[in-house]
C-alpha cells in the first residue's frame, strides 16, 4: 500500500491505524518493522501506538529511525561481527560511540596518509568524513566509488580511499562505531542473518536513504505487506543527506492512494515548488515579503512583529523562525522577545554555557599539579561554584592577579593561603577526586557543586553530553589518552546533533530552526518567518574537493559533472525544501531578507529572488534625477562601450546612479534584470552607497544589481555555486585581512633570516609579484624567493587566500572553465565601472571577460584624480586608452567648488605642464552657472615661520568658522596617517572635537568602548590602564558630567566604593562582575547597554567577529585583550563597520588626502605642505629605499628617474584632489620649520607656494 501524503495528511495516524489492522488480523508485533526518519518521529510513532493500544501487553515494538535500525541490528548481532574481526581485543559490546570519538580516530589516520599538495589541512577531516558518509549512506561499493572518482577526475582519490580504509580498520581495532559505521556494517548483518519481519510500515519514504532502500530490496520477498507513506514532491534531504527519490509504485507494482488534501495550502506549496523549478519568482498568498538593508534591521523587525503577534494572542508555539544563520547575534536579539525561544539548530560549543565552562575548569584543576590559571577562571569558580559574595570575588581575583604576576604563584598554593573555609573545602575536594577517571571526576564535581534545579536544566543537559563524550572516550581508548588533552578537545567541540537521540522540543516555545530541522521535525505553526533569505547558506552547495554530494549519489549515471549539473540539482533541492516549508505554516509566511549579513558583507545567490511582490515587476524610482546638459549623454546610453570622463564634483555618482535606476526600469535594455547589471566600485563604501541609494529608490526591490569592489566580485565568482571546487580550493578558505597577512609575511621574513622591519617592503613586493602573473621560478632575488615560498606555504596550510589571490583565482576560473565563464557572460549584460582611473590590469581583464558577450561596458572616472598608482597596482593608462577608443562623455562642469577654488585647480593642471607634463589630461573644470558656492573667500595660501604658528592659525580659524558657521563642515587633509593622528591629538587638546577618518578599529566607538571595558576588567589595579579606559568611557554621552573622576583616581583604589557617587563606576563594576561570562557574550551585553540604535548595535557584531576570530587561536581573556590592543590602531579594511551618512558638522574631519577622495567639505585646510610632503619638482622627489628595492624585484623594473617622475605626477594629482574637496574655502599652508624628533628642522615649502596666487 502506498500513500501519497504530506505532513498535513495525518499520515502517522493512518500508519498507526494500519499497524493495529495488522495486529488485529493476527500479526505478531515482533514481525512488524516500522521505519521512520528520525528519533523524534520514532518517539511520536511509539507514543501513538501506546495511546491507541488497549490495556495489556503490546509486545515488542520494532519502531526504528533509519539509523536506529542499523544500530539495533548491530547490537543484537554483535557476536557475529566480533567473530569476524581479525584485530585483537574482542569485546562484549561494540562501542556505539558519538562522532567525537570517530573524528579523533579519523584525525589520527589522516596523519599517516600524505595528501601531497592538498590545499588545506584544516578541512581535510571534514571533507573525508563527508565523503565517507556519502559512500555509506548511498551504499556505494568499490566499483561505484571508482566510477565516481573518474567522473570527477579526482586528484586525491587514492589518498582518500587509503585514509577511509585505514579509518575503517582502526574502528574495527577499537570496536568503535559511530552511526555511519553502524550503517556500513548493517549490510553485512542483514545479508547474513535471518530476517525477522513480515510487514514493513515506512513513513517519510521520500527521505529514505539508498542504504535503507537496499535493505528493503533484500528483504522484499519475505514481506507480506508494505505500507508506505511518501510525499512525491518531498525528498528535501537530497544531496549530502542522501535522500533517494524512490519509485515505490514500480518497486511494489501498486498504484498509490492519494491522501493529500487538495487545499489552498498544498496548492500554494506546489506553486512555490513549480515556480522555483522553472527559475521564476512567485508571490504566494498570505505572505509578507520584506527586504532590508542591514541584517540587524531585519532581525529587529522580526522581533517587533513577533512581539505584536504575541500581544494579539498568538501562542509562542504557533510561531517558528527559519534561518540558516542561527548565530549569537540572532540569539542575543531574540532574548528581547521575552518569551521562551528554543533553538533547534545552530552550533554551540559546550564551553559557551557558563556553568559547563566552570565545571570544565574544575576538571582541569583536578588534573594539574599546581599551575597558573587565568584570574577569570578563578572568578568563575568563586562566583558560580563557591558562591562567594561579589566583593569577595573581586578581591580574591585581584589578589590572585598580584600573586600570579609578581610571585608566579600557582593557583592551588594561592588558594591554600586564603582564610576562607569554602575555598579550603574546595581544595580538599579537588584532592579527593584526583585519582578517579575523568567521568568519575565529572560526576563527583556535579554532585557536590551543581544544584539540581530547574534553572540549571539546560546546563545539566549539556554536562551530560560532555559526560557521554568522556564515557565514549574511556570506553574506546581506556586510559590511552591524556586527561587534559581530552578536556581541551571536548570543551571546544560543537554540541553535535546525534541523529539517534534528539533533544525534546518544548511545547510552549517559539522555535528557531534551520529549514531542514523544521521539516525533519514536521513542526507545523501558524506564523512562519523565513529569515536571511538573501543569505547563500539557504542554498547549500554540497560539493567540495573530496566529496561531491551529487556524483556520490547512488543514482548518478552521467560520465561528467558540469557546473550546470550542480546548479540544476541544487535548484531541485531548494524547490523541495521550500515546498515542505510552505506546508509547515497554516496562516502567514514572512519572507525577510537583507542586503548585508551581520558582518556588513553583501549577501548573494539565495532564495529571495524567488519571492517577489507583484508591483516589483515594473519598478519606477522614487526620486527622478534631472540631468544637466553635460550629463544628459550618459542617460541617453543605449548600449555598447561608453567612457564617462567626469571632473571632481561633476555629479558623477548621481548620474551613474540615475543610469543604474534607468537600466532597472527596463527602458534601456529589454528584459534586463537586476542580476544582469554589474557595478564595480573602487571602495566598499561607494558600493554600499550605491546599494543603499538604489534600495531607497526601489524599496521593494528584493534583488539588487551586483554592486561591489573588484575583490567583492572576485569573491562572489569564487564562492557562488561552490565554483572554487573547480580550482581545487577547499570550501573553508578564509580571506586574510591586512593584519593577518602582515603577520604571516613578517613570520616569513623573520624565518628567512631578515629583520622584522622588512615586513612592509615584502608586503608590497608579494602583492606586485602576484599581480604580475609571473612564475615563481622567475623571481630573481633569493631572499624574496625564500620569503615568498614560506608565505605561500603558510597560506596553503591554513587555507588562506589574500586579496591578490582572489582576483588571480577568479580570473583563472573564468579563463579555464567554460561553464563558469558562460554563466557569468550570460548574466553580465551591462557592466559599469566607477573610478576607472584606479583600475588595475587584472580588473580590466576581468571586465573584458565578463562583458565579452554583450559588450555593454561603461567605464567612468577622472584620469586627473588617479592617485593610487605609486602604491597599488592601478594603471591609469588602460582607462586613457578606453576613453580614446570609445564613445566618451565628458562631464567637465562642477558645481561643488567656489570659482576661485576651481581656478586654482585648473591652474594646478597648467602648472604641471612645466614639471610633469603627463600628470593630467587637459580637462578643465567649468562652473555650473548660478550653482557654485557664492562665497568668494576662495583659496588662501599661508606661510608661517614655525609649525606652532601654523597650528595656532588653524585652531583660530576653526574656532571662527565654528562660531560663525556652525552648520558648515570642516576638514583637515594631510599627507600621511601619522600626521592625522598627531593633528587629531593636538586639536582634541585644544578642545576641538575631531573625527578621524581612518580604517583603524579604534576609530569606531563600539570597538573603542568594548576594548576600554575589557582593558578595565583585565587589570583593575593599573592606574594608567584605568585612566585610559575612563577617558574612552567619558566619550559616552551619559557620563559627560563625570569628568572629575579622572582627577580623583590618583591615589585611590578605583574598585573601592569611594567612587560609588559616579554612575560610570557602577557600570564598570557591573561589567567587572559580569566578566565571568563568555567574553563574546559580554560584547553583546556592552553593546546592548551603550548602543541602543540599531546602526550602532549592528557594529557590535563586527566587534564580536573580530574577537571571535582571535579566540580561535587564543583561548584566555587576557590573550584576547592583549591582541585587541595590538590591532586596535592598525589599518584594517576588512572589518566593515556601518557608518552614519550624517552631516559632518560639529566636528573637524581629519584624514589623509588619499582618504578624502570622493568627499567634500565647506572648509578645507591642507597644512604642512612642505616640498618633502608635496614635492612638485623632480628635485624634491626622494625615492624611498623600499621603493627601489620593490622595483628591483619586478620582472621589468623601472629606473629611478622614471619612478621619480611617476611620483611627481601623482603628487600633482593628489594636490588637485585635495584642492577640489573644498566648497567655499581652501587654506593651503606650510611652515618654514617643523619639529622632527624633538629638533626644529628647516623645511622648504612646496612648489605650489611659488605661484602668483600664493604670493
Amino acid at each position, binding site marked *: 500500500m502506498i500513500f501519497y501524503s504530506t505532513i498535513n495528511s495525518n499520515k502517522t495516524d493512518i500508519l498507526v491505524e494500519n499497524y493495529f489492522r495488522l495486529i488485529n488480523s493476527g500479526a505478531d508485533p515482533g514481525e512488524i518493522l516500522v521505519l521512520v526518519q528520525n528519533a523524534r518521529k520514532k518517539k511520536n510513532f511509539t507514543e501513538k501506538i501506546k495511546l491507541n493500544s488497549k490495556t495489556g*501487553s503490546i509486545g515488542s*515494538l520494532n519502531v526504528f529511525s533509519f539509523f536506529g535500525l542499523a544500530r539495533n541490528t548491530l547490537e543484537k548481532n554483535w*557476536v557475529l561481527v566480533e567473530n569476524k574481526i581479525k584485530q585483537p581485543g574482542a569485546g562484549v559490546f561494540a562501542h556505539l560511540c558519538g562522532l567525537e570519538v570517530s573524528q579523533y580516530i579519523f584525525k589520527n589516520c589522516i596523519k599517516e596518509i600524505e595528501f601531497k599538495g592538498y590545499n588545506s589541512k584544516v578541512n581535510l577531516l571534514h571533507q573525508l568524513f563527508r565523503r565517507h558518509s556519502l559512500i555509506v549512506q548511498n551504499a556505494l561499493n568499490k566499483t561505484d566509488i571508482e566510477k565516481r572518482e573518474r567522473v570527477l577526475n579526482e586528484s586525491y582519490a587514492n589518498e582518500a580511499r587509503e585514509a577511509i580504509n585505514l579509518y575503517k580498520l582502526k574502528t574495527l581495532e577499537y570496536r568503535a562505531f559511530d552511526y555511519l559505521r553502524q550503517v556500513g556494517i548493517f549490510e553485512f548483518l542483514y545479508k547474513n542473518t535471518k530476517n525477522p519481519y513480515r510487514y514493513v510500515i515506512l513513513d517519510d519514504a521520500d527521505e529514505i536513504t539508498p542504504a535503507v532502500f537496499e535493505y528493503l530490496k533484500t528483504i522484499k520477498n519475505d514481506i507480506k505487506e508494505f505500507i508506505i507513506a511518501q510525499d512525491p514532491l518531498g525528498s528535501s534531504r537530497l544531496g549530502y543527506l542522501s535522500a533517494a527519490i524512490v519509485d515505490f509504485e514500480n518497486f511494489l507494482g501498486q498504484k498509490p492512494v492519494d491522501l493529500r488534501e487538495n487545499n489552498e495550502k498544498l496548492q500554494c506549496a506546489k506553486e512555490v515548488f513549480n515556480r522555483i523549478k522553472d527559475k521564476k519568482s512567485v508571490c504566494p498568498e498570505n505572505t509578507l515579503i520584506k527586504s532590508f538593508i542591514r541584517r540587524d534591521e531585519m532581525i529587529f523587525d522580526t522581533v517587533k512583529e513577533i512581539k505584536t503577534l504575541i500581544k494579539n494572542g498568538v501562542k509562542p508555539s504557533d510561531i517558528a523562525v527559519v534561518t540558516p544563520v542561527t548565530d549569537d547575534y540572532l540569539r542575543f536579539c531574540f532574548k528581547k522577545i521575552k518569551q521562551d525561544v528554543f533553538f533547534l539548530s545552530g552550533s554551540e560549543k559546550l564551553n559557551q554555557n557558563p556553568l559547563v565552562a566552570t565545571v570544565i575548569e574544575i576538571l582541569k584543576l583536578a588534573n594539574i599539579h599546581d599551575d597558573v590559571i587565568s584570574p577569570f577562571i578563578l572568578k568563575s569558580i568563586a562566583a558560580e561554584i563557591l558562591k562567594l559574595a561579589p566583593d569577595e570575588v573581586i578581591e580574591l581575583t585581584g589578589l590572585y592577579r598580584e600573586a600570579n604576576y609578581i610571585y608566579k604563584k600557582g593557583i592551588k598554593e594561592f588558594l591554600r593561603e586564603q582564610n576562607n573555609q569554602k575555598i579550603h573545602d574546595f581544595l580538599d575536594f579537588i584532592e579527593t577526586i584526583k585519582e578517579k577517571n575523568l*567521568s568519575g571526576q565529572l*560526576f563527583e564535581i556535579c554532585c557536590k557543586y551543581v544544584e*539540581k*534545579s*530547574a534553572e540549571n536544566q539546560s546546563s*545539566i543537559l549539556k554536562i551530560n553530553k560532555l559526560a557521554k563524550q568522556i*564515557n565514549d572516550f574511556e570506553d574506546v581508548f581506556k586510559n590511552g589518552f591524556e586527561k587534559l588533552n581530552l578536556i581541551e578537545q571536548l570543551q571546544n567541540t560543537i554540541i553535535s546533533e546525534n541523529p539517534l537521540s534528539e533533544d525534546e522540543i518544548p511545547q510552549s516555545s517559539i522555535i528557531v530552526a534551520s529549514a531542514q530541522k523544521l521539516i525533519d521535525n514536521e513542526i507545523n505553526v501558524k506564523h512562519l518567518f523565513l529569515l536571511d533569505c538573501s543569505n547563500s547558506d539557504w542554498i547549500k552547495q554540497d560539493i567540495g574537493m573530496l566529496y561531491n554530494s551529487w556524483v556520490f549519489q547512488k543514482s548518478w549515471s552521467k560520465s561528467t559533472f558540469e557546473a550546470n549539473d550542480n546548479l540544476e540539482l541544487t535548484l531541485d533541492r531548494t524547490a523541495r525544501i521550500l515546498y515542505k516549508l510552505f506546508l509547515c505554516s497554516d496562516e502567514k509566511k514572512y519572507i525577510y531578507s537583507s542586503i548585508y549579513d551581520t558582518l556588513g558583507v553583501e549577501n548573494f545567490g539565495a532564495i529571495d529572488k524567488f519571492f517577489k511582490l507583484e508591483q516589483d515587476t515594473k519598478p519606477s524610482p522614487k526620486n527622478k534625477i534631472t540631468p544637466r546638459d553635460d550629463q544628459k549623454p550618459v542617460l541617453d546610453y543605449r548600449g555598447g562601450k561608453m567612457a564617462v570622463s567626469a571632473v571632481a564634483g561633476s555629479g558623477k555618482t548621481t548620474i551613474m546612479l540615475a543610469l543604474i535606476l534607468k537600466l532597472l526600469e527596463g527602458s534601456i535594455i529589454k528584459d534586463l534584470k537586476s542580476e544582469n547589471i554589474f557595478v564595480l566600485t573602487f571602495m566598499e563604501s561607494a558600493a554600499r552607497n550605491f546599494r543603499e541609494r538604489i534600495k531607497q529608490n526601489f524599496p521593494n526591490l528584493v534583488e539588487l544589481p551586483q554592486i561591489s569592489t573588484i575583490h567583492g566580485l572576485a569573491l562572489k565568482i569564487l564562492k557562488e555555486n561552490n565554483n572554487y571546487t573547480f580550482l581545487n580550493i577547499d570550501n573553508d578558505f578564509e580571506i586574510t585581512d591586512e593584519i593577518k597577512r602582515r603577520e604571516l609575511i613578517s613570520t616569513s621574513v623573520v624565518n628567512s633570516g631578515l629583520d622584522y622591519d622588512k615586513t612592509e617592503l615584502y608586503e608590497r613586493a608579494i602583492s606586485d609579484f602576484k599581480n604580475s602573473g609571473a612564475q615563481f621560478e622567475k623571481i630573481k632575488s633569493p631572499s624574496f624567493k625564500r620569503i615568498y615560498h614560506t608565505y605561500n606555504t603558510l597560506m596553503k596550510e591554513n587555507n588562506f587566500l589574500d586579496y591578490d589571490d582572489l582576483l588571480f583565482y577568479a580570473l583563472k576560473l573564468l579563463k579555464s572553465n567554460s561553464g563558469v565563464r558562460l554563466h557569468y557572460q550570460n548574466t553580465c549584460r551591462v557592466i559599469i565601472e566607477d573610478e576607472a582611473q584606479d583600475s588595475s590590469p587584472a580588473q580590466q581583464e576581468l571586465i573584458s571577460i565578463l562583458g565579452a558577450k554583450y559588450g555593454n561596458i561603461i567605464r567612468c572616472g577622472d584620469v586627473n584624480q588617479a592617485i593610487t598608482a605609486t602604491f597599488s597596482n592601478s594603471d591609469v593608462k588602460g582607462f586613457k586608452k578606453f576613453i580614446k577608443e570609445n564613445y566618451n562623455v565628458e562631464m567637465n562642469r562642477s558645481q561643488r567648488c567656489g570659482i576661485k577654488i576651481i581656478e586654482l585647480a585648473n591652474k594646478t593642471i597648467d602648472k604641471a605642464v612645466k614639471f610633469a607634463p603627463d600628470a593630467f589630461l587637459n580637462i578643465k573644470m567649468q562652473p555650473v552657472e548660478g550653482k557654485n558656492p557664492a562665497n568668494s573667500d576662495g583659496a588662501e595660501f599661508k606661510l608661517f615661520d614655525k609649525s606652532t604658528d601654523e597650528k595656532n592659525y588653524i585652531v583660530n580659524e576653526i574656532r571662527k568658522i565654528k562660531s560663525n558657521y556652525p552648520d558648515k563642515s570642516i576638514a583637515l587633509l594631510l599627507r600621511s596617517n601619522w600626521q592625522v593622528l598627531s593633528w587629531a591629538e593636538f586639536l582634541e587638546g585644544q578642545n576641538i572635537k575631531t573625527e578621524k577618518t581612518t580604517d583603524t578599529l579604534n576609530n569606531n566607538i563600539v570597538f573603542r568602548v568594548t576594548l576600554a571595558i575589557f582593558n578595565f576588567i583585565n587589570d583593575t589595579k593599573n592606574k594608567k590602564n584605568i585612566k585610559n579606559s575612563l577617558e574612552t568611557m567619558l566619550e559616552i554621552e551619559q557620563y559627560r558630567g563625570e569628568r572629575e573622576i579622572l582627577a580623583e583616581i590618583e591615589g585611590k583604589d578605583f574598585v573601592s566604593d569611594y567612587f560609588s557617587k559616579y554612575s560610570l563606576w557602577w557600570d564598570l563594576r557591573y561589567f567587572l562582575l559580569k566578566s565571568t561570562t563568555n567574553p563574546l557574550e559580554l560584547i553583546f551585553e556592552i553593546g546592548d547597554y551603550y548602543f541602543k540604535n540599531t546602526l550602532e548595535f549592528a557594529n557590535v557584531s563586527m566587534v564580536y567577529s573580530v574577537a571571535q576570530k582571535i579566540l580561535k587561536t587564543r583561548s584566555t581573556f587576557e590573550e584576547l585583550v592583549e591582541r585587541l590592543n595590538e590591532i586596535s590602531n592598525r589599518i584594517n579594511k576588512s572589518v566593515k563597520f556601518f557608518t552614519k551618512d550624517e552631516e559632518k558638522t560639529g566636528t573637524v574631519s581629519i584624514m589623509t588626502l588619499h582618504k578624502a577622495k570622493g568627499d567634500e567639505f565647506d572648509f578645507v585646510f591642507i597644512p604642512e605642505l612642505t616640498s618633502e610632503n608635496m614635492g612638485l619638482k623632480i628635485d624634491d622627489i626622494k625615492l624611498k629605499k623600499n621603493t627601489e628595492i620593490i622595483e628591483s624585484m619586478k620582472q621589468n623594473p623601472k629606473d629611478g628617474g622614471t619612478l621619480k617622475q611617476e611620483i611627481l605626477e601623482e603628487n600633482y594629482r593628489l594636490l588637485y584632489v585635495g584642492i577640489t574637496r573644498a566648497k567655499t574655502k581652501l587654506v593651503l599652508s606650510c611652515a618654514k620649520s617643523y619639529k622632527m624628533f624633538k629638533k626644529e628642522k628647516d623645511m622648504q615649502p612646496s612648489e605650489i607656494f611659488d605661484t602668483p596666487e600664493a604670493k
Partner: protein
Amino acid sequence: MNTFSVNSLKILDESVENYINKYILKLDFLNQNESAKRGERLHAMISYYLSGFDITKIKNNMPKIEKEMLDRVLDCEIFKDREKFIKSEESFLVKCSGGGFDFYLTGRFDAIFQDGGKYVIYDWKSKNIPKNPDTRLQSIVYLYCASKIFKTQNISIRYISLENLESASADFLDEKGYFERILGIIEKLPKKYLT
C-alpha cells in the same frame, strides 16, 4: 503517556521530588560505575549464549574473574535444557488502567524459560540475591506484567547471583495486591504529572 520501570517506581516510592528531578525534569548526572558495567557484560554474554551465538572468542578475551563467573553460570542446570529456553533480554510494555488514568509498565526480562506449563523469568544479579523476593517491587512488577504478556498466572521469577550462584524465587500470588502496590506508588505523583 507515563511509563514506569521498576527503578523509576522505586525512586518515586522513596521520594517524589527525586522522581520528578530525574524522570521529568531530567536533572540527573550521567554516571557509570565499573561493577554495573561488569553486570552488563555478564548479562549480555548469557543472552548471546542463549541466542545461540558462538561466544568463545569474546569469552576468552574477558578478564579472568568475569570469564570464571560466566563459566560457572553457564554450567548451571538451566542452560543445559535449551528446549525450555524461550527468549532472552526481552523488553516488555504493558498498558494498565487504574485510578482514572492509563499508564505503562516497562522493563526487560533477562531470560524466560518454560518448564511444563510454567513460565520462569530469570533475573541475574551481579552480587547478592534479594532477601525477600516475594515482596520485592521487581517481583511484583515483573510477575504482574508477565501474567499479562503470557496470559497465565503460572509464573515465577528466579533471581540468580552471578557471583555465588545463590538463587531465590517468587511465584505469582496476588494480581490485585500487585496492582494496588504499583498504583499506590504511582498515585504519589501529583496529578499534573500524570498524562
